[in-house]
Each structure stands twice: as structure tokens, then as C-alpha cells.
């Protein structure tokens, strides 16, 4: 279960997120959509307790798998030691490392230094890290950025399988086709406010709807 209840937060007087409420039930994939700077990452950091909300509260069933917006790792470590270290931090057996890498399509990267990975490889390792221990909640900030089309399809299958195993999955994304394909619901945030929460239609419909909600001017 992932729940945001009237979350608000400003940075130095500038409002970033305003009374954002939504929830992700176990077994559900929810896509968090919005233009750049809308407040997606801020909401995610509020959900994880990395930022203090000015008002409202966040409720996330722990442990939670988290993919940050930007990949974060130790360049000098091999992928397997990086995951081994995070497994220890998450109090998950080291034996979980291999299946997590496999599920994220990163099994071939185990021996490579983190600092030498390509963007898409890094993204896959970031996803593998979130899968450690198969937590009941996932909060993924643009988990498919930088992945090639085949990997995007694989990630989609993975997210669906996590949900069918009973996890609550929240992903933020800019890819409307992806949202339409993977999500049970989409939550659209514009200028810090939730402006729509609905079932995604076909990709084309979602795009039309998104542009309508966001206002064309903002996408230029």
C-alpha cells in the first residue's frame, strides 16, 4: 500500500507540491504523469520520508523498493558487490542478488564496475537493487529512462508480474505509451496539483488527454 494524503511542500516559499492525494493498492500499478517540474520527484521523496512535508502525510508499506530519478552507485565496486552491500543494508540475504539481477535483465553485468556501465545498464542495475528481497511496495522514479525498446517491454512485463504477486507499484514516467500499456490507473500532476486520476485509455487517447490537462503551451 502506498498512500499520499494531502501532501504539500514548498522550497523557500515556492510551492512544489500542493495537497497531493492518491493511493496505490496492493496488486496495482499506478503511473504518475506530469510535465517537467510538476512535482513528481518531490512527491516521491515525500512518500519515502526523504523530505519533510509542510502538511499532509505519507503512508508506505515497508520495506520499499526505490529507484531514484538519477542512478546512484559506487563507481569502484563491481555490480555484484554493489548489490551485495545494499542487500546487507536492507537485511536481505546475499543470495537474493543473483535473482534480482536476473529479473532486471542485468545478470550479464554482475562482474562489471558500476562506474563503467552505460546509461541503460545503470538503469537496469538500479532496478535490480529495488527488487532485492521482493518488497511489498515499489516507488520507481522514471525507471525506464534510457532503456532500449526491448528492455522497456521487459521492464513492463516485470512491473506487471510484481503487481500480480501482490505488490503496490508506483512509477513516474514521461512515456505515455508506457503508462497506457502498464498502468491500471494514471495520476496526472501539473504545477504541484493532481489534476486527474483515471484509467488510461489507448496510448493515443492518453496523449490527447494529457495535452489537454497540461495545456499545450507548457510542452513547448
Amino acid at each position, binding site marked *: 500500500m502506498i498512500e499520499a494524503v494531502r501532501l504539500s511542500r514548498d522550497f523557500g516559499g515556492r510551492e512544489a507540491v500542493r495537497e497531493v492525494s492518491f493511493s496505490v493498492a496492493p496488486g496495482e500499478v499506478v503511473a504518475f504523469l506530469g510535465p517537467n517540474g510538476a512535482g513528481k520527484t518531490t512527491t516521491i*521523496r515525500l512518500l*519515502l*520520508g*526523504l*523530505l*519533510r512535508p509542510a502538511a499532509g502525510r505519507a503512508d508506505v508499506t515497508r*520495506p*520499499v523498493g*526505490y529507484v*531514484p530519478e*538519477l*542512478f*546512484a*552507485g*559506487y563507481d*569502484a*565496486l563491481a555490480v555484484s*558487490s554493489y548489490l551485495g*552491500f*545494499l542487500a*546487507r*543494508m*536492507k*537485511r536481505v540475504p546475499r543470495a537474493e542478488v543473483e535473482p534480482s539481477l536476473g529479473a532486471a535483465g542485468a545478470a550479464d553485468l554482475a562482474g562489471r564496475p558500476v562506474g563503467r556501465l552505460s546509461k541503460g545498464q545503470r538503469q537496469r542495475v538500479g532496478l535490480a*537493487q529495488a527488487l532485492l528481497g521482493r518488497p511489498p511496495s515499489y516507488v520507481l522514479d522514471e525507471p525506464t529512462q534510457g532503456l532500449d525498446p526491448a528492455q522497456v517491454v521487459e521492464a513492463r512485463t516485470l512491473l506487471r508480474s510484481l503487481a500480480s504477486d501482490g505488490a503496490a507499484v508506483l512509477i513516474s514516467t514521461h512515456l505515455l505509451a508506457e503508462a497506457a500499456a502498464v498502468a491500471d490507473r494514471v495520476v496526472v500532476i501539473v504545477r504541484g496539483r493532481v489534476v486527474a486520476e483515471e484509467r488510461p485509455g489507448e496510448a493515443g487517447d492518453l496523449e490527447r488527454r494529457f495535452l489537454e490537462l497540461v495545456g499545450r503551451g507548457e510542452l513547448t
Partner: protein
Amino acid sequence: MTRAVVGKELRVLWASPVPYVVGALLQLVLGLLYVDQLAARRQALFQPAVPIAGFLLLALTPLVCMRAVAEEARSGTLELLLAVPVAGRPLVVGKWLAAWITVLVVLAPVVLFVLLLEWFGNPDLGPVLSGLVGLALLAGALAALGVLASSLTSTQPVAAMTAFFVSLLLWFAHVRAEALSVGGVMDRLSISERLRGFAGGVVDTSDVAFFVLLAAAALTLAAAAVDGRRLR
């Protein structure tokens, strides 16, 4: 948990050039200054090596510690750990242990000087041992200060400079202390005065306690600083 942090820190630290450069500089400068002292005194004494090594640790320990928390904050891995959530204490204690071990390893070749002394003459081993104990304790306290400085910023050079200047103030805390109304307190804060006892062959429990408390206080503050990053 702490063990995993120590292992990871050691691997990351020794994959960087920092320990090698720090070690080379430390041994080179220490060797030059110490041999100069020996030549001047014409006595087989380890004592003069202690303050020289201590002062060099003041400058070099911050370099070993500067990345500890600052680099994790900059690269985003700290946020990943805080989201788990990992508490500040095992994190900073692990980082401190790794930094301390690293400084001790880098310092270890000083025992070669002792062998040199054995060859030169007949040194008293008491002051040698107490001097080494003093240096090890000093290194632990300085490493804790370095980790604390690193936990207050995400810029490594700022962390190193802060730790260096704070250590420098503590080193010279006794200077002109008698002229001040708080002179007695300042005198007791001076890490160079504390080290002097060890170099002279005396292991005083209050001096040991001083270094241990300094390290504990710095680590407590560092853990609080890390936990404070969680909810900003």
C-alpha cells in the same frame, strides 16, 4: 550492518589514490624530519617522531575522511540508504572505522623507524609503545572529526578544510592559554599536550579518555547530521 559498511568503505577508499598518496607523503616527510632530529640529538629516541607524525596526521587524516559522507550525499547513494531506511549511527561508525583502519595502515611503516633505532643504539621500548598508542588514539579522534566534517557538507574539499582547521585549533589550544581566563580549559583541550604525555612514555587514563570522548562526541554529532538529512 556496521561490518558491511566498513568493508564497502575500505574497498571504495583503497580503489582511490588517496591512501597511497597520503601514505607516501606521510612517510616521506616524517622520515626526513625524524632523521634530522636524530642526527641533531645523536640519541636513539623514538620520542621526536611522535609530535611530527601527529602533526602530519592532522593534515592528512581529513583527506582520508573527506569523502565519507559528503560523496554519498553528492552522488545520491546516501538518499538510497536513507530510504531503506538505514540509521545514521551504523553508517558513520562504519565509515569512521574504515578511515581509522586506513590511517593506521598508512602510519604502520613507522615501526621501521623503531627497527632503525635498534640498529643505531638501544632504545627504551616503553616510550616507543606509548608513543604508538598515542598516535593510534589521535588518529581515531581525528578520523571521527573528519567524518563529522564530511557529514555536514556535500563538498569534499570543504569537509577536508573544516576538519583540518578544527584539528589545528585543538592542536594549538594550549598556546597562550595561561593568558586567558578559560586557560585551564583550553589547556585540557590541546591534543598536542595530550600527545606529549604519550611520547614521554606515560599512558595516562585521562589522556586516553580524552581521545575516546572526542571521537565519541564527533561520531554522535555526525550520526545526528546524517539522520537530519532524512527529513529536510
